[in-house]
C-alpha cells in the first residue's frame, strides 16, 4: 500500500506515494475537454466516407442547413485555405500525398472526413450530418491489403503515383551474406502484427475559441503535445504563432494516439474563427476505432543464422508497413524504429533490413504505445525461440550465450545504436528463479504425459526510449522546466511534458519536496498550457522522467544556487560558505535561514546581492546526448484447452530494469497497463478490414480490449542499472510492458502447443485460431 503524503521523515523519492493528481479524478471534479462549456458554444459533428475508395462528385448540404439550430456546413472547398495535415517523415524516397483536413475530390479510406455540420447542440449536429448528401462514385478496385497493394496490377490508392509504395528504407551492417554462408543452421518465419486501435478511454475532443479583440485562438485539445500542436496549427491556419494558445486539459489517456496533429483540430479552429462562436467536437467511439491512427500493421519475413553452438550470426529482414490512405505525423518513422531495435539484446553484427511502406485504402497508421519496438521485439524474441527449438537448446541458454556482458556497455548494436547500460543475464536469471524454471520443466513433462498443453514463454526485451537527442527526432527532443518560488515559499513547476495519467505531478513534487526541504503539497506542477508553460515538446516515447524530469532537476539546482547567493548576502557571508539541506541554508558562525525566508527576501529585494536579479526562479532546457535503453525479462506460463482452444495464463513474472525509480507505485502501474496492451494483441485485439476495405471491428463489441478477467496476476520486480546519460539515472517505463509482454505470451502458447508440432501461431491467438491449429495438426 502507498503512503499518504504527510510530513517529511525520509526522502520522498523512491517511495510508494499516492498521487497528487487523484483527488480531482476520484471525485469527478477534473476537467476533460468535454467538460468545458463556453458561453454561446456550438457543436460540430463530422461526416465520414462509407467507402474505402471513391470520387466525390458533389456535396449537397441544403437539407442539413434547413434544420433548425444548424449554423453551417463545412466541406473540403470551405476548408481550402487550411494547410495540409503535417507529416514529419523525411526519408529521401518518401511520398507525401497532399492531405487536406476534409476530403476534396476523393476519399481514401472508410472514415475519411468529408464534411462537418455545426449546430447549437450535439444532437442537432448529428442530425445535420445525416442530412448532408454526398454523391460518391465508388471505385470498384480497392487496395485493401498491404501485400496485395504492392502487386504490379494493384489498384493505386493515389493515382498520381505509379504504384502504392509510400517509401523504402534500407539498413545493413556487418557482412550478412558471409554470416549466412558460415551458418550451421538458419530459420525463417513470417510474422504479422495486426493493426491495433489505441483506444484511450477518452476519445479525441476539441474546443476552439477565438478572441477577436486579442486576435487569439485558443484550442483545448485532448493532446499529448500541446506545444507542437500550437506550432502546427499556426502553420495550417496561417496565423502568427504567438496568437495561438493550446491547452491540454485533463487528458483521458493517449498511448501515442494523441501525439499527433489531427484534421479536426485545425477544423475546429477554422470554424470558431469563421462562425465567431466557441465550438466543440467530441469524437464518438466508433470514429475513434475507425480513424484514430492504428498502431502496428506490420508484416515481417525474417531469417536468422546461427552456429550449432547457438552463436547467432546474422539476420535478414523484409518488412512491409501498412501506411493507410495517407500519412499522419510520424507514420513513416515508426517502422524505422522497429528496424533499429530488431537485433534485440543480442551481439550478432550482421544485419540487413528492407522496409517498404505501402499505401492502402485503410485508415492511416501511426504511433501507438511501443511504436515499432513491440513489432521488433515480437519478431526477434519469437525467431530466437524458433532457433532454440531447431538447435535443441534451452531458449534461456541461447539468449544468455548471445547477450553482451555487463562489461561490454556502452554496447554498439548491429544497427548502430549505443545501448547505454545493462545486465541482461541478471534480469533473465531473476525471472527464471522467480518462476521456478527447473521445477516447472518437471511439472511440464508430467503435464504433457497427462495430455495437458502446458507451456512456458520467455521474452528478454530491450527498448529505446527517453526520446531523445534532437538530431534524431523530427521536432526537437529536448525538454524545458521553469521553477518559480513564490514570495511565500510555495513552488510552481512548469514542465514542457504533458502527462495524461503517468503521474508526473506527483513524481516532480517528490523531487522538489526533497530538494527544497518542503512538503509535497507546497509544490504544484503545471503542464499542458502553452500560455503557462512557454516551451515544451510533450509526453511520448517514455520521456517524461528521463528528459522532463532532468530539466526539472537542472532548474532546481539553479534555484538552490541562487538561493545560496541570497542567503549568503543576508548572512554577510560568501556563497561558498553557505550550504543548503532539508530546507535550511547554513552559513558560518551557526547562522541559518530557511528556504521560505530566502524566497521572501528574494522577492522583496531589500538586500539584493550584487550582480543578482530579483526573484527565486529558473528556467532550464535539457538536451539529451543519447536515448536510454531499459530492458527486462518477462515469463509466462500458459495452458491451452485442447477442446476449445482457449488460453489460460497461469503465471506472469516480469523483471524490469528501467534505471532509477522515483515512485515504485507509479512504475508498477505503468508496467501493469503496458502488459495489458501487449496481452491485447496477443489474445484479443485486431482491427479487421474486409477484402473490399470495409472495417469489420467498429465497436468495442468487435474490437476487444482486455477486461479485468483477461489479465493474469502480474508478479513483478526490478533490477536497477542506472541510466548513465542523465543525472537522475532514469530510463523510462511507459512502454516497457507493452514491448516485453507480447512475445512472452506467444512463446508460452507456442511452447504449450509444441507437442502437436505447431511452431508458430499468428496473433491474436483467439480460441478459434488456436482450435483450428490444433484440429489441423490432429488431422495431419
Amino acid at each position: 500500500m502507498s503512503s499518504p503524503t504527510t510530513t517529511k521523515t525520509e526522502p520522498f523519492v523512491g517511495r510508494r506515494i499516492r498521487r497528487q493528481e487523484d483527488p480531482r479524478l476520484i471525485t469527478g471534479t477534473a476537467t476533460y475537454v468535454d467538460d468545458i462549456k463556453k458561453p454561446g458554444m456550438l457543436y460540430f459533428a463530422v461526416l465520414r466516407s462509407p467507402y474505402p475508395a471513391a470520387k466525390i462528385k458533389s456535396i449537397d448540404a441544403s437539407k442539413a442547413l434547413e434544420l433548425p439550430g444548424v449554423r453551417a456546413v463545412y466541406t473540403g472547398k470551405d476548408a481550402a485555405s487550411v494547410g495540409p495535415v503535417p507529416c514529419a517523415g523525411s526519408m529521401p524516397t518518401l511520398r507525401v500525398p497532399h492531405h487536406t483536413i476534409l476530403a476534396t475530390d476523393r476519399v481514401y479510406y472508410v472514415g475519411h472526413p468529408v464534411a462537418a455540420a455545426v449546430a447549437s447542440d450535439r444532437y442537432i449536429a448529428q442530425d445535420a450530418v445525416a442530412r448532408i448528401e454526398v454523391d460518391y462514385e465508388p471505385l470498384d478496385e480497392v487496395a485493401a491489403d498491404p501485400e496485395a497493394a504492392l502487386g504490379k496490377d494493384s489498384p493505386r490508392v493515389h493515382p498520381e503515383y505509379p504504384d502504392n509504395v509510400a517509401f523504402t528504407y534500407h539498413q545493413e551492417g556487418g557482412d550478412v551474406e558471409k554470416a549466412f554462408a558460415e551458418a550451421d543452421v538458419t530459420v525463417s518465419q513470417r510474422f504479422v502484427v495486426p493493426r491495433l486501435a489505441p483506444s484511450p478511454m477518452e476519445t479525441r475532443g476539441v474546443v476552439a475559441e477565438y478572441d477577436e479583440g486579442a486576435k487569439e485562438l485558443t484550442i483545448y485539445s485532448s493532446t499529448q503535445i500541446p506545444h507542437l500542436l500550437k506550432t502546427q496549427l499556426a502553420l495550417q491556419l496561417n496565423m502568427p504563432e504567438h496568437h495561438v494558445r493550446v491547452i491540454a486539459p485533463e487528458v483521458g489517456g493517449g498511448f501515442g494516439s494523441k501525439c499527433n496533429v489531427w484534421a479536426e483540430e485545425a477544423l475546429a479552429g477554422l470554424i470558431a474563427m469563421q462562425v465567431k462562436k466557441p465550438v466543440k467536437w467530441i469524437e464518438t467511439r466508433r470514429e475513434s476505432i475507425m480513424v484514430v491512427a492504428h498502431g502496428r500493421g506490420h508484416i515481417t519475413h525474417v531469417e536468422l543464422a546461427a552456429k550449432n553452438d547457438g552463436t547467432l550470426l546474422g539476420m535478414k529482414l523484409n518488412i512491409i508497413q501498412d501506411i493507410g490512405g495517407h500519412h499522419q505525423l510520424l507514420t513513416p518513422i515508426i517502422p524505422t524504429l522497429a528496424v533499429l531495435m530488431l537485433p534485440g539484446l543480442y551481439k550478432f553484427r550482421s544485419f540487413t533490413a528492407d522496409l517498404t511502406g505501402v499505401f492502402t485504402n485503410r485508415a492511416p497508421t501511426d504511433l501507438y504505445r511501443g511504436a515499432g519496438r513491440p513489432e521488433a521485439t515480437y519478431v526477434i524474441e519469437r525467431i530466437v525461440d524458433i532457433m532454440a527449438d531447431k538447435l535443441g537448446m534451452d531458449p534461456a541458454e541461447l539468449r544468455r550465450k548471445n547477450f553482451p556482458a555487463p562489461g561490454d556497455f556502452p554496447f554498439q548494436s548491429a544497427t548502430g545504436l549505443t545501448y547505454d547500460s545493462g545486465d541482461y543475464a541478471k534480469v533473465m536469471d531473476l525471472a527464471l528463479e522467480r518462476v521456478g524454471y527447473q521445477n516447472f520443466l518437471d511439472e511440464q513433462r508430467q503435464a504433457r504425459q497427462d495430455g495437458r498443453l502446458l507451456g512456458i514463454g520467455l521474452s528478454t526485451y530491450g527498448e529505446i526510449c527517453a526520446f531523445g537527442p534532437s538530431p534524431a527526432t523530427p521536432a526537437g527532443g529536448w525538454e524545458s522546466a521553469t521553477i518559480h518560488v513564490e514570495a511565500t515559499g510555495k513552488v510552481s513547476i512548469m514542465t514542457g511534458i504533458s502527462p495524461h495519467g503517468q503521474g508526473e505531478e506527483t513524481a516532480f513534487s517528490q523531487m522538489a519536496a526533497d530538494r527544497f526541504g518542503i512538503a509535497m503539497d507546497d509544490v504544484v506542477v503545471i503542464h499542458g498550457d502553452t500560455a503557462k508553460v512557454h516551451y515544451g515538446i510533450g509526453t511520448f516515447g517514455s520521456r517524461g522522467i528521463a528528459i522532463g524530469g532532468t530539466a526539472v532537476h537542472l532548474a532546481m539546482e539553479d534555484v538552490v544556487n541562487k538561493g545560496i547567493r541570497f542567503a549568503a548576502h543576508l548572512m554577510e557571508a560568501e556563497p561558498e560558505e553557505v550550504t543548503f539541506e532539508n530546507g535550511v541554508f547554513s552559513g558560518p558562525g551557526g547562522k541559518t535561514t530557511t528556504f521560505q525566508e530566502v524566497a521572501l527576501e528574494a522577492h522583496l529585494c531589500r538586500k539584493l546581492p550584487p550582480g543578482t536579479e530579483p526573484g527565486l526562479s529558473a528556467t532550464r532546457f535539457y538536451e539529451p546526448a543519447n536515448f536510454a535503453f531499459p530492458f527486462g525479462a518477462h515469463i509466462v506460463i500458459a495452458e491451452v484447452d485442447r477442446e476449445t482452444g482457449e488460453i489460460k495464463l497461469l503465471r506472469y513474472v516480469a523483471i524490469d530494469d528501467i534505471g532509477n525509480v522515483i515512485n515504485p507505485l507509479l512504475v508498477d502501474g505503468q508496467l501493469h497497463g503496458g502488459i495489458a496492451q501487449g496481452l491485447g494483441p496477443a489474445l484479443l485485439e485486431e482491427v479487421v478490414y474486409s477484402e473490399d476495405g470495409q472495417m469489420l471491428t467498429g465497436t468495442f463489441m468487435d474490437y476487444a480490449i482486455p477486461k479485468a478477467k483477461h489479465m493474469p496476476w502480474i508478479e513483478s520486480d526490478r533490477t536497477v542499472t542506472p541510466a548513465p546519460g542523465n543525472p537522475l539515472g532514469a530510463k523510462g517505463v511507459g512502454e516497457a510492458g507493452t514491448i516485453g509482454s507480447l512475445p512472452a505470451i506467444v512463446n508460452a502458447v507456442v511452447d504449450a502447443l509444441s507437442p502437436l508440432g505447431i511452431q508458430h501461431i499468428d496473433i491474436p491467438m483467439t480460441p478459434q485460431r488456436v482450435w483450428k491449429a490444433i484440429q489441423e495438426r490432429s488431422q495431419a
Partner: protein
Amino acid sequence: MQKTIQVNVNGREYERTVEPRLLLVHFLREDLGLTGTHIGCESSVCGACTVLLEGRAVKSCTVLAVQANGKKIETIEGLARNGDLHAVQEGFWNEHGLQCGFCTPGMILSVCQLLADNPSPTKDEIRHGIEGNLCRCTGYQHIVNAVEAAAKAKAGGA
C-alpha cells in the same frame, strides 16, 4: 415534443424539461452540470458512464433521461460526504487504482454496487464484478487491490 421530469440526484431534487431522446448521461452532464460521469463508447460496453439508478449500477449512455423520471440517482459527485471520501474512493487513491482517471468514476460506482452485493469479494469475484467497466491504463491489478482495500476498510467500520 418536450417532457418534464423530476429526479433526485445525489440527494437533491431537480425538475427539468427535456427532449424524449435525451440520454441520461447527457442530462446529467449538460443539464445538471455534473460532468464527473463520462462517456466512453456510447454503446454500454465500456462503463465510463456508470451511475447508480435506484441503487443499481446502470450505464447512463443507454438510459433515456425520461426513464429516470421520479427516480433516485447517485453519481461520483455524491459519494464523498462533507469532504470525507467514500471508502472506495480512498481505496482507489491509496492503491493507485487509476491513471488517466477517465474510467474511474464509472468504475468506482460499479465497485460500490459490487461491495453492496458482496462485502468481501475474492480477487476473481472482483474481476468478474468489474467486467462491465473497461480501463485501458491500469491493467486492472491496482483496481483489484483498491477494491480489496475498500472492502477491508468498510468491514473495519471505516
